[in-house]
Protein backbone atom coordinates (compact mmCIF):
# COMPACT_ATOMS: atom_id res chain seq x y z
CA UNK A 1 0.00 0.00 0.00
CA UNK A 2 1.35 3.46 -0.86
CA UNK A 3 0.26 7.05 -0.41
CA UNK A 4 -1.56 7.09 -3.75
CA UNK A 5 -3.73 4.26 -2.48
CA UNK A 6 -4.30 6.11 0.78
CA UNK A 7 -5.34 9.14 -1.22
CA UNK A 8 -7.71 7.00 -3.30
CA UNK A 9 -9.39 5.78 -0.10
CA UNK A 10 -9.63 9.37 1.05
CA UNK A 11 -11.30 10.45 -2.19
CA UNK A 12 -13.80 7.60 -1.96
CA UNK A 13 -14.45 8.74 1.61
CA UNK A 14 -15.06 12.30 0.41
CA UNK A 15 -17.60 11.07 -2.16
CA UNK A 16 -19.37 9.02 0.50
CA UNK A 17 -19.69 12.04 2.80
CA UNK A 18 -21.18 14.20 0.06
CA UNK A 19 -24.21 11.90 -0.02
CA UNK A 20 -25.08 12.44 3.66
CA UNK A 21 -28.08 14.29 5.02
CA UNK A 22 -28.02 18.10 4.83
CA UNK A 23 -28.28 20.25 7.92
CA UNK A 24 -31.22 22.54 8.45
CA UNK A 25 -32.31 25.30 10.80
CA UNK A 26 -34.16 22.85 13.11
CA UNK A 27 -30.95 20.95 13.77
CA UNK A 28 -29.12 24.13 14.72
CA UNK A 29 -31.96 25.12 17.03
CA UNK A 30 -31.93 21.78 18.80
CA UNK A 31 -28.16 21.99 19.20
CA UNK A 32 -28.48 25.34 20.96
CA UNK A 33 -31.21 23.84 23.14
CA UNK A 34 -29.00 20.91 24.02
CA UNK A 35 -26.04 23.09 24.91
CA UNK A 36 -28.22 25.35 27.08
CA UNK A 37 -29.71 22.26 28.71
CA UNK A 38 -26.26 20.93 29.58
CA UNK A 39 -25.19 24.25 31.01
CA UNK A 40 -28.42 24.53 32.96
CA UNK A 41 -27.94 21.05 34.48
CA UNK A 42 -24.49 22.11 35.61
CA UNK A 43 -25.87 25.32 37.18
CA UNK A 44 -28.53 23.35 39.10
CA UNK A 45 -25.92 20.85 40.30
CA UNK A 46 -23.69 23.71 41.49
CA UNK A 47 -26.62 25.22 43.40
CA UNK A 48 -27.32 21.90 45.15
CA UNK A 49 -23.63 21.48 46.02
CA UNK A 50 -23.52 25.09 47.28
CA UNK A 51 -26.52 24.56 49.56
CA UNK A 52 -25.06 21.31 50.92
CA UNK A 53 -21.71 22.99 51.56
CA UNK A 54 -23.38 25.87 53.40
CA UNK A 55 -25.47 23.46 55.47
CA UNK A 56 -22.23 21.83 56.60
CA UNK A 57 -20.79 25.17 57.69
CA UNK A 58 -24.06 26.07 59.41
CA UNK A 59 -23.79 22.87 61.45
CA UNK A 60 -20.20 23.81 62.27
CA UNK A 61 -21.23 27.28 63.49
CA UNK A 62 -24.00 25.73 65.63
CA UNK A 63 -21.44 23.39 67.20
CA UNK A 64 -19.13 26.33 67.94
CA UNK A 65 -21.97 28.19 69.65
CA UNK A 66 -22.97 25.14 71.69
CA UNK A 67 -19.57 23.66 72.50
CA UNK A 68 -17.42 26.85 72.74
CA UNK A 69 -14.24 25.17 71.42
CA UNK A 70 -12.41 28.55 71.23
CA UNK A 71 -12.94 29.22 74.96
CA UNK A 72 -14.82 32.47 74.47
CA UNK A 73 -15.35 34.32 77.74
CA UNK A 74 -17.58 37.20 76.65
CA UNK A 75 -20.89 37.15 74.82
CA UNK A 76 -19.54 39.73 72.32
CA UNK A 77 -16.97 37.17 71.12
CA UNK A 78 -19.85 35.13 69.68
CA UNK A 79 -20.97 37.99 67.42
CA UNK A 80 -18.89 36.89 64.35
CA UNK A 81 -20.15 33.31 64.52
CA UNK A 82 -23.74 34.52 64.91
CA UNK A 83 -23.32 36.78 61.85
CA UNK A 84 -21.71 33.85 60.04
CA UNK A 85 -24.67 31.56 60.81
CA UNK A 86 -27.26 34.22 59.95
CA UNK A 87 -25.45 35.04 56.69
CA UNK A 88 -25.40 31.36 55.76
CA UNK A 89 -29.14 31.02 56.42
CA UNK A 90 -29.88 34.06 54.20
CA UNK A 91 -27.59 32.83 51.41
CA UNK A 92 -29.02 29.31 51.60
CA UNK A 93 -32.58 30.66 51.45
CA UNK A 94 -31.75 32.72 48.37
CA UNK A 95 -30.03 29.79 46.65
CA UNK A 96 -32.92 27.49 47.53
CA UNK A 97 -35.44 29.99 46.16
CA UNK A 98 -33.53 30.23 42.86
CA UNK A 99 -33.11 26.45 42.74
CA UNK A 100 -36.85 25.89 43.21
CA UNK A 101 -37.54 28.30 40.35
CA UNK A 102 -34.95 26.50 38.20
CA UNK A 103 -36.51 23.12 38.99
CA UNK A 104 -39.75 24.31 37.37
CA UNK A 105 -37.92 25.15 34.12
CA UNK A 106 -37.24 22.42 31.59
CA UNK A 107 -35.32 23.22 28.41
CA UNK A 108 -36.55 21.42 25.34
CA UNK A 109 -36.03 22.37 21.71
CA UNK A 110 -39.64 23.53 21.59
CA UNK A 111 -39.42 26.06 24.44
CA UNK A 112 -35.73 26.94 24.58
CA UNK A 113 -36.25 30.69 24.03
CA UNK A 114 -38.88 30.99 26.75
CA UNK A 115 -36.84 28.83 29.15
CA UNK A 116 -33.69 30.93 28.63
CA UNK A 117 -35.65 34.15 29.24
CA UNK A 118 -36.93 32.71 32.54
CA UNK A 119 -33.44 31.59 33.63
CA UNK A 120 -31.96 35.01 32.83
CA UNK A 121 -34.81 36.64 34.80
CA UNK A 122 -33.86 34.59 37.89
CA UNK A 123 -30.25 35.73 37.55
CA UNK A 124 -31.29 39.35 37.06
CA UNK A 125 -33.67 39.44 40.04
CA UNK A 126 -32.86 42.45 42.28
CA UNK A 127 -30.10 41.19 44.52
CA UNK A 128 -29.12 44.27 46.52
CA UNK A 129 -29.98 42.62 49.85
CA UNK A 130 -28.14 39.47 48.77
CA UNK A 131 -25.04 41.53 47.97
CA UNK A 132 -25.16 43.38 51.32
CA UNK A 133 -25.42 40.02 53.07
CA UNK A 134 -22.28 38.78 51.32
CA UNK A 135 -20.38 41.94 52.28
CA UNK A 136 -21.41 41.66 55.94
CA UNK A 137 -20.69 37.92 55.84
CA UNK A 138 -17.16 38.47 54.49
CA UNK A 139 -16.51 41.34 56.91
CA UNK A 140 -17.53 39.19 59.87
CA UNK A 141 -15.24 36.37 58.79
CA UNK A 142 -12.25 38.38 57.63
CA UNK A 143 -12.24 41.05 60.34
CA UNK A 144 -14.50 40.18 63.27
CA UNK A 145 -13.73 36.47 63.60
CA UNK A 146 -9.94 36.95 64.00
CA UNK A 147 -10.65 39.81 66.44
CA UNK A 148 -12.81 37.52 68.60
CA UNK A 149 -9.57 35.93 69.81
CA UNK A 150 -8.19 39.29 70.87
CA UNK A 151 -9.12 39.15 74.61
CA UNK A 152 -7.15 35.94 75.09
CA UNK A 153 -4.18 37.24 73.07
CA UNK A 154 -4.10 40.51 75.02
CA UNK A 155 -3.84 38.50 78.24
CA UNK A 156 -0.87 36.52 76.99
CA UNK A 157 0.94 39.03 74.70
CA UNK A 158 -0.14 42.51 75.68
CA UNK A 159 -2.25 44.96 73.64
CA UNK A 160 0.30 46.07 70.98
CA UNK A 161 1.68 42.66 69.91
CA UNK A 162 -1.79 41.09 70.16
CA UNK A 163 -3.23 43.75 67.81
CA UNK A 164 -0.33 43.33 65.38
CA UNK A 165 -0.63 39.55 65.48
CA UNK A 166 -4.34 39.84 64.54
CA UNK A 167 -4.08 42.71 62.02
CA UNK A 168 -1.48 41.01 59.82
CA UNK A 169 -3.63 37.98 58.83
CA UNK A 170 -6.67 40.28 58.50
CA UNK A 171 -4.78 42.55 56.07
CA UNK A 172 -3.47 39.61 54.02
CA UNK A 173 -6.93 38.02 53.73
CA UNK A 174 -8.55 41.37 52.84
CA UNK A 175 -5.91 41.93 50.17
CA UNK A 176 -6.45 38.46 48.70
CA UNK A 177 -10.22 38.98 48.57
CA UNK A 178 -9.75 42.38 46.93
CA UNK A 179 -7.40 40.86 44.31
CA UNK A 180 -9.85 38.00 43.65
CA UNK A 181 -12.63 40.56 43.19
CA UNK A 182 -10.53 42.63 40.81
CA UNK A 183 -9.62 39.53 38.82
CA UNK A 184 -13.31 38.73 38.39
CA UNK A 185 -13.59 35.76 40.74
CA UNK A 186 -17.00 36.89 41.99
CA UNK A 187 -18.48 37.51 38.55
CA UNK A 188 -21.49 35.48 37.49
CA UNK A 189 -20.41 33.94 34.21
CA UNK A 190 -23.32 31.62 33.51
CA UNK A 191 -25.77 34.43 32.83
CA UNK A 192 -23.57 35.76 29.99
CA UNK A 193 -23.51 32.31 28.39
CA UNK A 194 -27.30 32.00 28.61
CA UNK A 195 -27.62 35.47 27.04
CA UNK A 196 -25.35 34.36 24.20
CA UNK A 197 -27.57 31.31 23.65
CA UNK A 198 -30.65 33.51 23.57
CA UNK A 199 -29.03 35.87 21.05
CA UNK A 200 -28.10 32.94 18.84
CA UNK A 201 -31.63 31.66 19.07
CA UNK A 202 -33.11 35.01 18.15
CA UNK A 203 -30.85 35.16 15.11
CA UNK A 204 -32.06 31.69 14.14
CA UNK A 205 -35.67 32.78 14.51
CA UNK A 206 -35.00 35.75 12.23
CA UNK A 207 -33.49 33.36 9.71
CA UNK A 208 -36.45 31.02 10.00
CA UNK A 209 -38.92 33.90 9.42
CA UNK A 210 -36.86 35.03 6.44
CA UNK A 211 -37.04 31.55 4.91
CA UNK A 212 -40.80 31.30 5.51
CA UNK A 213 -41.36 34.71 3.88
CA UNK A 214 -39.26 33.71 0.88
CA UNK A 215 -41.31 30.57 0.36
Amino acid at each position, binding site marked *: *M*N*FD*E*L*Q*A*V*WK*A*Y*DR*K*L*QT*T*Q*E*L*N*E*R*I*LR*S*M*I*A*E*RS*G*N*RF*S*KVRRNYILGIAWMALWLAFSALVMIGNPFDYRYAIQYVPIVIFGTGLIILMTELLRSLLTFQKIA*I*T*HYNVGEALTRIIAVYERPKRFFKYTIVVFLFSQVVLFPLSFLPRNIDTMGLGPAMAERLIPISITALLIFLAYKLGAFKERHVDKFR*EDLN*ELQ*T*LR*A*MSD*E*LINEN
Partner: protein
Amino acid sequence: MEKDFLDMINLHRGIIYKVCNLYGPNKSNREDLFQEIVLQLWRSFPTFKNESLLSTWMYRVALNTAISQFRKESKQPERQSLSKAEFQLPDISFPTDEGENSLVLNEAIQRLTRIEKALIMLYLEEKSYREISDIMGITESNVGVKLYRIKSKLEKIIKERNYELR
Protein backbone atom coordinates in the same frame (compact mmCIF):
# COMPACT_ATOMS: atom_id res chain seq x y z
CA MET B 1 -26.03 36.27 6.00
CA GLU B 2 -27.81 33.63 8.13
CA LYS B 3 -29.00 31.74 5.09
CA ASP B 4 -25.46 31.68 3.76
CA PHE B 5 -24.38 29.86 6.89
CA LEU B 6 -26.46 26.75 6.23
CA ASP B 7 -25.51 26.78 2.55
CA MET B 8 -21.87 26.97 3.51
CA ILE B 9 -22.14 24.22 6.12
CA ASN B 10 -23.93 21.93 3.69
CA LEU B 11 -21.50 22.62 0.88
CA HIS B 12 -18.52 21.74 3.07
CA ARG B 13 -20.11 19.36 5.58
CA GLY B 14 -17.57 16.72 4.58
CA ILE B 15 -14.88 18.75 6.38
CA ILE B 16 -16.79 18.57 9.67
CA TYR B 17 -17.56 14.87 9.28
CA LYS B 18 -13.95 14.03 8.51
CA VAL B 19 -12.68 15.94 11.54
CA CYS B 20 -15.29 14.22 13.73
CA ASN B 21 -14.29 10.81 12.42
CA LEU B 22 -10.59 11.47 13.00
CA TYR B 23 -10.96 12.94 16.48
CA GLY B 24 -13.98 11.15 17.93
CA PRO B 25 -13.07 7.75 19.38
CA ASN B 26 -16.72 6.64 19.50
CA LYS B 27 -20.17 7.62 18.22
CA SER B 28 -21.07 9.68 21.26
CA ASN B 29 -17.81 11.67 21.13
CA ARG B 30 -18.26 12.23 17.42
CA GLU B 31 -21.76 13.59 17.97
CA ASP B 32 -20.53 15.92 20.73
CA LEU B 33 -17.67 17.10 18.56
CA PHE B 34 -19.94 17.62 15.56
CA GLN B 35 -22.26 19.75 17.65
CA GLU B 36 -19.39 21.76 19.11
CA ILE B 37 -17.86 22.43 15.69
CA VAL B 38 -21.16 23.54 14.14
CA LEU B 39 -21.85 25.84 17.07
CA GLN B 40 -18.34 27.30 16.92
CA LEU B 41 -18.78 27.91 13.20
CA TRP B 42 -22.18 29.48 13.84
CA ARG B 43 -20.71 31.74 16.49
CA SER B 44 -17.71 32.86 14.48
CA PHE B 45 -19.54 33.13 11.14
CA PRO B 46 -20.43 36.85 11.58
CA THR B 47 -16.73 37.67 11.98
CA PHE B 48 -15.69 35.62 8.95
CA LYS B 49 -14.17 37.88 6.33
CA ASN B 50 -13.55 36.84 2.78
CA GLU B 51 -9.84 37.32 3.30
CA SER B 52 -9.42 33.57 3.36
CA LEU B 53 -11.22 30.78 1.53
CA LEU B 54 -14.42 29.60 3.17
CA SER B 55 -13.09 26.05 3.32
CA THR B 56 -9.80 27.24 4.86
CA TRP B 57 -11.75 29.03 7.58
CA MET B 58 -13.89 25.93 8.16
CA TYR B 59 -10.84 23.68 8.46
CA ARG B 60 -9.29 26.13 10.91
CA VAL B 61 -12.36 26.33 13.15
CA ALA B 62 -13.10 22.60 12.98
CA LEU B 63 -9.54 21.51 13.71
CA ASN B 64 -9.05 24.06 16.48
CA THR B 65 -12.28 22.91 18.10
CA ALA B 66 -11.31 19.25 17.82
CA ILE B 67 -7.83 19.83 19.25
CA SER B 68 -8.99 22.10 22.08
CA GLN B 69 -12.02 19.86 22.81
CA PHE B 70 -9.55 17.13 23.69
CA ARG B 71 -7.91 19.41 26.24
CA LYS B 72 -11.26 20.30 27.79
CA GLU B 73 -12.72 16.80 27.74
CA SER B 74 -12.29 16.20 31.46
CA LYS B 75 -14.15 19.45 32.23
CA GLN B 76 -17.14 18.63 30.06
CA PRO B 77 -20.45 18.42 31.89
CA GLU B 78 -22.61 15.38 31.41
CA ARG B 79 -24.51 15.79 28.16
CA GLN B 80 -28.19 15.43 27.54
CA SER B 81 -29.40 14.19 24.19
CA LEU B 82 -32.09 16.60 23.15
CA SER B 83 -30.85 16.94 19.60
CA LYS B 84 -30.68 13.21 19.00
CA ALA B 85 -34.38 13.20 18.23
CA GLU B 86 -33.75 15.90 15.61
CA PHE B 87 -30.53 14.72 14.12
CA GLN B 88 -28.66 11.44 13.90
CA LEU B 89 -25.07 11.72 12.84
CA PRO B 90 -24.82 9.67 9.63
CA ASP B 91 -22.28 6.91 9.12
CA ILE B 92 -19.08 8.90 8.72
CA SER B 93 -16.60 6.02 8.96
CA PHE B 94 -14.22 5.23 6.11
CA PRO B 95 -15.94 3.46 3.19
CA THR B 96 -15.97 -0.29 3.62
CA ASP B 97 -16.00 -0.95 -0.13
CA GLU B 98 -12.33 0.07 -0.21
CA GLY B 99 -11.58 -3.14 1.68
CA GLU B 100 -8.37 -3.55 3.62
CA ASN B 101 -7.03 -0.15 2.60
CA SER B 102 -9.77 1.60 4.61
CA LEU B 103 -8.87 -0.40 7.69
CA VAL B 104 -5.18 0.37 7.26
CA LEU B 105 -5.84 4.07 6.81
CA ASN B 106 -8.12 4.21 9.82
CA GLU B 107 -5.83 2.24 12.14
CA ALA B 108 -2.72 4.14 11.07
CA ILE B 109 -4.31 7.58 11.44
CA GLN B 110 -5.73 6.73 14.85
CA ARG B 111 -2.20 6.16 16.10
CA LEU B 112 -1.09 9.68 15.20
CA THR B 113 -1.14 12.61 17.63
CA ARG B 114 -3.90 15.19 17.31
CA ILE B 115 -1.68 17.68 15.47
CA GLU B 116 -0.34 14.95 13.18
CA LYS B 117 -3.90 13.89 12.35
CA ALA B 118 -4.73 17.44 11.31
CA LEU B 119 -1.67 17.68 9.08
CA ILE B 120 -2.17 14.32 7.38
CA MET B 121 -5.83 15.09 6.82
CA LEU B 122 -4.94 18.33 5.04
CA TYR B 123 -2.28 16.51 3.06
CA LEU B 124 -4.77 13.86 1.95
CA GLU B 125 -7.16 16.66 1.03
CA GLU B 126 -4.43 17.81 -1.37
CA LYS B 127 -4.01 21.18 0.26
CA SER B 128 -0.90 23.11 -0.67
CA TYR B 129 1.80 23.74 1.94
CA ARG B 130 0.70 27.37 1.93
CA GLU B 131 -2.92 26.48 2.74
CA ILE B 132 -1.83 24.00 5.42
CA SER B 133 0.39 26.70 6.85
CA ASP B 134 -2.58 29.15 6.89
CA ILE B 135 -4.89 26.67 8.57
CA MET B 136 -2.44 25.35 11.15
CA GLY B 137 -0.65 28.62 11.86
CA ILE B 138 2.83 27.22 11.24
CA THR B 139 5.43 28.11 8.61
CA GLU B 140 5.48 26.38 5.22
CA SER B 141 8.92 24.91 5.89
CA ASN B 142 7.65 23.54 9.19
CA VAL B 143 4.72 21.95 7.33
CA GLY B 144 7.20 20.20 5.03
CA VAL B 145 9.31 18.90 7.89
CA LYS B 146 6.33 17.72 9.89
CA LEU B 147 4.67 16.00 6.94
CA TYR B 148 7.90 14.19 6.14
CA ARG B 149 8.04 12.89 9.72
CA ILE B 150 4.37 11.94 9.72
CA LYS B 151 4.72 10.01 6.49
CA SER B 152 7.68 8.13 7.95
CA LYS B 153 5.67 7.43 11.06
CA LEU B 154 2.71 6.19 9.03
CA GLU B 155 5.01 4.00 7.01
CA LYS B 156 6.42 2.53 10.20
CA ILE B 157 2.97 1.95 11.68
CA ILE B 158 1.78 0.22 8.54
CA LYS B 159 4.92 -1.91 8.35
CA GLU B 160 4.44 -2.87 11.99
CA ARG B 161 1.08 -4.25 11.00
CA ASN B 162 2.72 -6.26 8.26
CA TYR B 163 1.53 -4.03 5.48
CA GLU B 164 4.08 -2.84 3.00
CA LEU B 165 4.11 0.77 1.92
CA ARG B 166 5.75 0.75 -1.45
